[in-house]
């Protein structure tokens, strides 16, 4: 039972354009959501997070949107850069300090 789903295994975007990565969840108890970025042979790196009391959080080129009624969140990267090419995981937890439930990841490729 996959509680956090990333239905697009891969995404290809041209440099300078917007990348939109999507994530859906099923557990209505989740109240904290995170995005991680992972390069090959490295551990996941924290990117940005959002709590359920917000619907948007922005950090530089990265913005996370949360739609609680749809149980959906998305990560926008604009403008996309070749160095953004990596696997992106969304994750969720039911409360602070609780375990993270990860999605299966989306491989983003940004081409020149």
């Amino acid at each position, binding site marked *: 039972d996959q509680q956090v789903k990333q239905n697009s295994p891969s995404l290809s975007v041209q440099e300078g354009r917007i990348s939109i990565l999507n994530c859906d969840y099923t557990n209505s108890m989740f109240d904290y959501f995170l995005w991680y970025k992972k390069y090959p042979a*490295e*551990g*996941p790196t*924290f990117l940005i997070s959002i709590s359920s009391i917000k619907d948007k959080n922005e950090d530089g080129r990265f913005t996370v949107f949360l739609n609680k009624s749809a149980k959906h969140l998305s990560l926008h990267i604009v403008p996309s850069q070749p160095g953004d090419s990596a*696997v992106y995981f969304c994750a969720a937890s039911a409360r*602070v*300090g609780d375990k993270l*439930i*990860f999605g299966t*990841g989306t491989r983003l490729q940004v081409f020149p």
Partner: protein
Amino acid sequence: DTAVSQTPKYLVTQMGNDKSIKCEQNLGHDTMYWYKQDSKKFLKIMFSYNNKELIINETVPNRFSPKSPDKAHLNLHINSLELGDSAVYFCASSLAHNEQFFGPGTRLTVL
């Protein structure tokens, strides 16, 4: 000045052997975790320790035994290794707010 480090990075061993993976964090965090990423790339929590106390155990076989000698270390010992244990194991740590910092991973191959 690595924040979360794991040793070894690669581990190749025979079925039935016992092996350990070590993890250390120098971030002053009080919670540490072990995750397993299998061949399908699912990243799943195995254990979590807070101040050396086990707080999460996700129905992992008892061949896996975590040990936390202090807040900065969480080691993973695996007995009687099986083929299905082949995976990448990630250690992570956090202080609060669920922002977990991950180590580089240990790729375990059981032959």
